[in-house]
Structures are given as structure tokens and as C-alpha cells.
């Protein structure tokens, strides 16, 4: 890697008072590709070094007028930034004189004696330059490492910070979910309590209304009797509304344990309870073989009740209602969900020949208090289908409707298939024996 870093040519400062010496050194070193800067006196050398400090080496003649080489060197080394630049002195004197300088020595220093041996000069320069280059590379490397290090540190810091953030968000989320669940439960509780407490005075209004009518019926005129009847009707409607809201609010609370339920049996029980209205409407109800559903029977009953009640309620005038209830095993609601979802669903269809509705309303009808008709046309509180939807959702299923005006409606409920636990089967087979 080190070798791959392209080195700029090393800079060498040549200091000699004699031009010819400078020229000969230049011609000796030029071929090696060094960048050479020349100074003809110590003073000039110092001047150069004021502006440029990136020299790899200084070659300096010792014998110069005014400032000699050693004096110049001392002045150079007084500057902190220049202390690392090695100096090779070129001197005619013996080594002892050079030892004098050694006392002051700060930077790396070497000597070449006159007459200058060109090979020795080249070799010494090359050694110093190599050292310089290696040092420079090391420094670069160190800088790079320290940058990498800093980056890493920053990255780690950032990661820790974002992890902290994620953790905080998670905590916040969990906290919010808890809060929401609590609020939901609280709402259900309030709805339940309110409904319960609203029922009592309402029942009394009905009772006092009855007593009033009983005592006054001989003296009341037709109009007054109609008012009293309206009081009863209105209070009864309010009562139904409260009852429905209460049923709705109880669904989550009374979800209870899921068991395998005989869907057909539940349906027949529900139909028996609805005997009067079925007779009154002269309705025909056909039930196909229905699967076992995994869920809470106490929730399935109101589900079937509301769907059948709906089919009876929205029947065509003068056409006896025909309701078909049939099932399809092991299929998902739509092709898309079938592709994405390997879960199997029981699908139960409740098909009627009633007035139907426009398909575009098929989502709206499941919303609470959404009605497609005026109150006077069809009775109801606007909760029935919302209740069905909530019940189905408690069972991780879904409910959809297909319809067209005048062509009846089909409500389709899809509930995940779950095989009953083996013990249940044994229990029922024992019972059969």
C-alpha cells in the first residue's frame, strides 16, 4: 500500500556562496528527480525557509561569508517547524570542528568532506531522502488512520445514538399501545356502565307510561292515546339502541375462550329464537351443511341473529324472504389474499332475495350508525352490521357483502380454519358412545 502512494519529488535546499559549487551539486542531483532550491548565502537560505518549510534535506556549505553554515543551521533549528529537516554540511575542515557543532545539535546532521565525492553525495542524499519519504508516508498513514478512527468513532457514536433513539421510540410505542388499550377498555367499561344505568330509568318511563295509560284510558281521546303510544315506541327504540351499544361494547370484554362450535346447530338455535319474525314475514330459510367454526358461540349467536335479521328486515314488499345459508371450505376471500396468505378460511354465505343495495356502499354498511335508508322505512339502530364486523374481527376473520339494488344481498363471513384440539374430539366421541 505504501508503495502505491505517489510521492511528490523531494525538495532539497542547496546553500553555497559559490555559484559553481551550486551548479555542480545541481547537476549531480538533478537526474534523481529531486526538486532543488538554491541559496547563495545563509541569509538567503533563511529567507527561503521563511516561505517554504517542506524541505526533505538541506545541503549547506560551511564556509560562507557573514553567516557560515553552522551559524545558519543554528538559526534554522531555532524554528520549531524546521527542526526535523536534516542538514548535510559540506566542509573542508576536519571532523573535530564538526564535533563543536554537535554540542548544539538538534536535528539530524551529517557531513561531507571536500573534495566532494559525487557517489558519496548521491548515496547520502538518497539515504536522507528515503528516510524523509518514509517518515512522510508514516505521517500520512497516521493521519489517515486517525481520520478513519475518528470516522469510526463518530459512526459508533451515531449508531449508539440511533439505537438509543430506536429504543426510546419503542418504549414510547409500547407505552402508547398500553395507553390505547387501557383507553379502549375504559371506553368499553364506560359504555357498558352508561348503558346499564340508562336502561333503568328508561324501563321506568315505560312502566309509568303504562300505568298512566291504564288509569286514564277511559278518559283519553284518540290523539292523547297516540301520544302515549309514541312515548312507548320512542322509549323502546332508545332501549334497543342502548342494548345494541352495550352488546357492541361487551364484545371485546367477553371474547372468552375459543372452542369448536357446530355452526349449523348455533344457526338453528338462533332461528328458533327468531321464530315469530320469521313466521310473520313468511320467510323461507334453507341451511346447507355448515362447518365447525373455531370461536366463541356467545359471539356467533348475535352474529347470525343480526345477519338473518338484516335479511328479513330488508326484504322486498310482498315478496316472501328467501334466505340461503351455505359454506365453502378452505378458500380465502379473494385471489390476492389467497396468493399472499396460506391460511385457510371457512366461508359462510348468507344470501337473500331482498331489496339489496349498491355495491359502492358495501364498506359503509359495516360502520356504526351508517344507514342506507330513512328511519321510518326500516327499523334499526345502525349497529347490527358494525357488531357483526367486530365479532368477525375478534375471530381474526373478515366480512364482506355483495349486492345490487333489487337483486338481493350476499354477506360472506370468512373465519380462519382451526382444527379442534384432539382432546375435544375424544371427549365428543366418548359422549357419542
Amino acid at each position, binding site marked *: 500500500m505504501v508503495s502505491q502512494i505517489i510521492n511528490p519529488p523531494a525538495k532539497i535546499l542547496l546553500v553555497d556562496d559559490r555559484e559553481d559549487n551550486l551548479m555542480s551539486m545541481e547537476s549531480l542531483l538533478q537526474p534523481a528527480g529531486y526538486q532543488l532550491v538554491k541559496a547563495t548565502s545563509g541569509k538567503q537560505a533563511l529567507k527561503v525557509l521563511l516561505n517554504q518549510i517542506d524541505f526533505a534535506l538541506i545541503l549547506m556549505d560551511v564556509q560562507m561569508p557573514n553567516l557560515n553554515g553552522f551559524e545558519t543551521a543554528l538559526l534554522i533549528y531555532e524554528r520549531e517547524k524546521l527542526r526535523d529537516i536534516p542538514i548535510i554540511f559540506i566542509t573542508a575542515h576536519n571532523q573535530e570542528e564538526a564535533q563543536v557543532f554537535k554540542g548544539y545539535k538538534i536535528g539530524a546532521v551529517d557531513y561531507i568532506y571536500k573534495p566532494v565525492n559525487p557517489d558519496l553525495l548521491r548515496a547520502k542524499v538518497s539515504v536522507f531522502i528515503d528516510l524523509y519519504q518514509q517518515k512522510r508516508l508514516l505521517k500520512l498513514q497516521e493521519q489517515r488512520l486517525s481520520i478513519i478512527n475518528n470516522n469510526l468513532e463518530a459512526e459508533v457514536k451515531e449508531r449508539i445514538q440511533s439505537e438509543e433513539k430506536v429504543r426510546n421510540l419503542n418504549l414510547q410505542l409500547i407505552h402508547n399501545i398500553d395507553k390505547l388499550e387501557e383507553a379502549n377498555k375504559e371506553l368499553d367499561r364506560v359504555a357498558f356502565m352508561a348503558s*346499564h344505568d340508562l336502561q*333503568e330509568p328508561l*324501563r*321506568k318511563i*315505560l*312502566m309509568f307510561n303504562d300505568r298512566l295509560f291504564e288509569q286514564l284510558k277511559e278518559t283519553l281521546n284518540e290523539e292523547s292515546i297516540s301520544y302515549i303510544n309514541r312515548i312507548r315506541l320512542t322509549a323502546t327504540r332508545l332501549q334497543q339502541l342502548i342494548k345494541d351499544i352495550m352488546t357492541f361494547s361487551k364484545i371485546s370484554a*367477553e371474547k372468552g375462550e375459543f372452542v369448536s362450535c357446530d355452526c349449523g346447530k348455533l344457526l338453528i338455535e338462533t332461528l328458533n329464537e327468531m321464530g315469530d319474525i320469521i313466521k310473520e314475514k313468511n320467510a323461507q330459510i334453507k341451511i346447507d351443511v355448515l362447518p365447525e367454526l373455531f370461536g366463541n358461540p356467545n359471539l356467533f349467536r348475535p352474529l347470525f341473529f343480526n345477519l338473518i335479521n338484516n335479511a328479513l328486515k330488508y326484504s322486498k314488499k310482498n315478496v316472501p324472504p328467501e334466505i340461503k345459508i351455505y359454506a365453502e371450505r378452505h378458500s380465502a376471500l379473494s385471489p390476492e389474499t389467497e396468493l399472499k396468505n396460506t391460511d385457510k378460511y371457512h366461508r359462510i354465505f348468507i344470501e337473500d332475495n331482498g331489496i339489496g343495495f349498491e355495491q359502492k356502499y358495501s364498506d359503509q354498511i359495516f360502520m356504526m350508525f351508517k344507514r342506507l335508508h330513512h328511519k321510518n322505512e326500516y327499523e334499526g339502530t345502525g349497529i347490527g352490521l358494525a357488531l357483526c364486523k367486530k365479532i368477525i374481527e375478534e375471530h381474526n376473520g373478515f366480512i364482506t357483502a355483495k349486492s345490487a339494488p333489487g337483486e338481493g344481498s350476499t354477506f360472506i363471513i370468512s373465519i380462519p380454519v382451526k382444527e379442534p384440539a384432539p382432546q375435544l374430539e375424544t371427549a365428543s366421541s366418548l359422549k357419542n358412545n
Partner: protein
Amino acid sequence: MERLNLLLADDDSDDCLFFEEALAEIAPDATIQVKKDGEEVLNYLFNPQSILPDIIFLDLNMPFIDGVKCLEEIRQSNRMNDIFIVMNTTTASQREIDLSFEKGANLFLIKPNSFSELQNSIEVILNLDFKTLIQRRQREQFVFNLKSFRGTFNS
């Protein structure tokens, strides 16, 4: 109809009034004790001087000692084993129904919405065969339903 002794426990004076008026029309001979809360009921029943009723109508929600607690106390006394107990409430949860059955009540009556229904209900209940029903308590016939009870038990 033989002369029946009734005990009605309800903290709601309107409901007591309805009940007494209804009873006066269908069974003028019957006697009725009205108690305002569970404590009054228990004080009366556990006083050896008191004449024990044939049938008790216990409201579920009463101050101090509620209906279920009252029921429990009564059922722990051998002396009161053959009192027919009807639990009474405006709106019932499945839990309350289950609990009442478990603690030994004989019937669960959801307060009717009309006076005539109340009258008819009381009439049907007073004509039930208490002895048989006390011996054979059935979960399926625990919650009172005017239509089915009238057919099955009216004498």
C-alpha cells in the same frame, strides 16, 4: 291459589311500587315484606321470630349487601332451604346469571319493560311448582322467559 308469603328486596322504590301494584291485582291475598337492602333482608330472615317467606325476589344491585351475597347467606342456612329465590335485575350479564345459578338461586328474572308483562311474569312465577323446582334446578330453565314458562309450568 294458596296464600303466599313474599319477600321483595329492592332499593328502588319505583320498582317496589310497580311490584306491589302488580301483585295487588293478581294475588290480593298474598302478603309481601319489602326490604331496601341486603342487610335488612338478612336481619329479617335470621330473626327467629320472623315468618319465613315462600318466595324471595332479590334485586342484584343493592347497597351494603348485594343480591348475590344475600343469596349466599340464605343458602347457607338449612332453615331456608326450601325458599324459592328469584334474582331480579334490569340488565344481566352472563357472569351475573352464572354466579346466581352457582350460588343457588332458582330463577333469574330480567325486569320487564311493561307493566302488563310484569304482572304476567309475577303471576306465572307465583304459580310455579316451587317444591319440584327447588329439588331439580336446571340451568336451561334458569333465566325466566314469559312465553316458555307460561306453556311449561302454568297450572
